């Protein structure tokens, strides 16, 4: 009997927690199918006729809002920009960060700790502190408004993150496993590729996902260092707010679309995140 009461209470607790976290998302999701009038109604409606007008408008780049002039948005381009910038910076980070993390984990070299800490300290510095000098430099050397420049600057955010997470994973792998593989007759690179990387995969996956999210969500760098040609969705969404109107439905729709890639990626990577591969290979 008491178990039943408990399980009922637990059920409601779960519902409350889920509501707390998911309600804003659900509401945004709802809003993206509403017209501006429905959204701005004083008593919010629960039942309405869903409209795909926002989505169609977002896709086609122009939307007519009742009572106002037609709005033009570059959301599709923003989305492509976001994808290029995020995938690009995560790729560069992986290429540079994984070998670097391995080096920091395995080899003790002069100044190694200092370099690792310096890299980490890039994360402490507020973006606003460095954005102006960077802007000047980039204008000077002709890097302003290029994917390359933004991907480069994004490394300030993503590289230290990946480096420090993956380094820990590499440190957890017993060097003996790598030595054993080499004694079998494999070269150093083979042991790195076939042993170290696969064993650090959960860490690399988690760090990549985080890097992707940070890169995707970045606002300040993209706002200052690029024109609308290369700006990602975070900045592009600003364009929705005009002097004449704030199309809430369109904004909600933009949010839903821009959250989707990260969400799908997280679901896809989830299986790597929970894999405790290293367990049981070493004694104990």
């Amino acid at each position, binding site marked *: 009997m008491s178990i039943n009461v408990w399980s009922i209470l637990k059920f409601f607790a779960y519902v409350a927690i889920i509501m707390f976290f998911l309600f804003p998302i659900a509401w945004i999701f709802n809003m993206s199918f509403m017209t501006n009038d429905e959204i701005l109604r004083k008593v919010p409606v629960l039942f309405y006729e869903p409209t795909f007008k926002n989505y169609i408008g977002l896709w086609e780049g122009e939307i007519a809002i009742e009572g106002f002039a037609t709005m033009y948005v570059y959301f599709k381009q923003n989305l492509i920009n976001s994808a290029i910038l995020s995938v690009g910076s995560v790729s560069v980070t992986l290429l540079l960060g994984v070998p670097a993390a391995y080096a920091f984990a395995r080899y003790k070299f002069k100044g190694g700790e200092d370099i690792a800490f310096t890299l980490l300290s890039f994360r402490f510095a507020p973006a606003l502190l460095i954005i102006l000098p960077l802007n000047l430099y980039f204008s000077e050397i002709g890097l302003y408004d290029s994917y390359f420049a933004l991907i480069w600057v994004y490394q300030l955010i993503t590289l230290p993150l990946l480096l420090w997470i993956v380094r820990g994973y590499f440190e957890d792998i017993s060097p003996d496993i790598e030595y054993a593989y080499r004694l079998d007759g*494999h070269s150093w690179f*083979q042991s790195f590729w076939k042993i170290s990387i696969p064993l650090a995969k959960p860490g690399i996956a988690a760090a990549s996902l985080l890097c992707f999210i940070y890169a995707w969500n970045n606002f300040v760098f993209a706002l200052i260092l690029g024109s609308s040609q290369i700006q990602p969705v975070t900045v592009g969404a600003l364009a929705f707010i005009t002097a004449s109107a704030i199309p809430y439905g369109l904004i909600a729709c933009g949010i839903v679309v821009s959250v989707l890639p990260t969400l799908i990626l997280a679901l896809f990577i989830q299986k790597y995140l929970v894999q405790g591969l290293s367990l*049981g290979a070493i004694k104990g």
Partner: protein
Amino acid sequence: MSYLDLDNLSKSFKDDKIISNLNAKIEKGEFFVVFGPSGSGKTVLLRLLSGIMMSDSGEIKMDNQIINELHPEERDVSMAFQNFALYPHMKAFENIASPLRAKNKNMPENEIHEKVNEIANLLKIGHVLNQFPKELSNGQKQRTSLARSLVDKPSVVLLDDPLRNVDAKIRFEMRLELPKVLKEFNTTVIYITQDFREAMALGDRIAVLYDGKFNDIDSPKNIYQNPSSLTTAKLFGDPTINNFDATIKKQDGFVEVDVNGEIFNLKKNTKIQDGKCIVGIRPEDIVLSNDHSENSIEVEFRTKTPLNLRIVFLVRLKNGLELLCSTTEEESHLIDENKKMYISFIEEKSHFFDIETKRNLE
């Protein structure tokens, strides 16, 4: 001509000399046990031989070729690690097949299967080849790691205390099986252990490692019966050898030992000089009795404790010197601790060591 030749090998970490001027000649097919207390550099030595670490100076010759500078993968050496070091993301089969795939690029798949199955059956792990390391018991992991080191029939197998992390039952089983399996492969084995019983059970020869070098290299029997120094004597034997300072004087056919006024005779044909030295007598070489005899000394009973089916007595001489004597269980029943007790020494079973250098004086 020896097969594996270690010549003046040295290795230090910062100012810490781990291995200094170590020498050894190891024959082909020999079971060579390296025994030493923990921290004596056994594992470092194995890492030098395998190429995981490079020596600071000295030479390692294998089959007359210097292999110092070769990377691990270029040496015909395999190793079973103390912590097994299995690849956690590969099944037992792939773990064992790894050396075959690395060294013989074009080996057909069915030949790999044949070889892996052969060694797996020999080591009785044929039924777990499809499992990941984390699904294996410690004993199975250890056998998998051994199988991996043997499958490609390397010239030299290095075994880093492979029985350390398995339970007592498996350890005993393996102690019986291992020499049999290894003989079948006719490889040279370098086996590391810090258990003197294991060393004595397995080794053709034992090298005793401390102070950075091999202090004895000899058959198990010789090392036990004729240790080169007090340190070696102390490492072999449980409980450890009794040792005390004494003044010795050669008499007609025996040696008179004077320990702080307590005088007894050790019948020994020896070329030893008169003077001060350290006398070492193993606990099992002291006879305990309630009866006084010609060459026995009265002792006072302190305590006793069972150890490995023997009984160890702690007794005290009149001058305060305490000695350990071990007897079989049956013998211990014949001794009444409440009566007067006497000890005497088994002839020829005592050792004399230099008081300064602790070297065996004979």
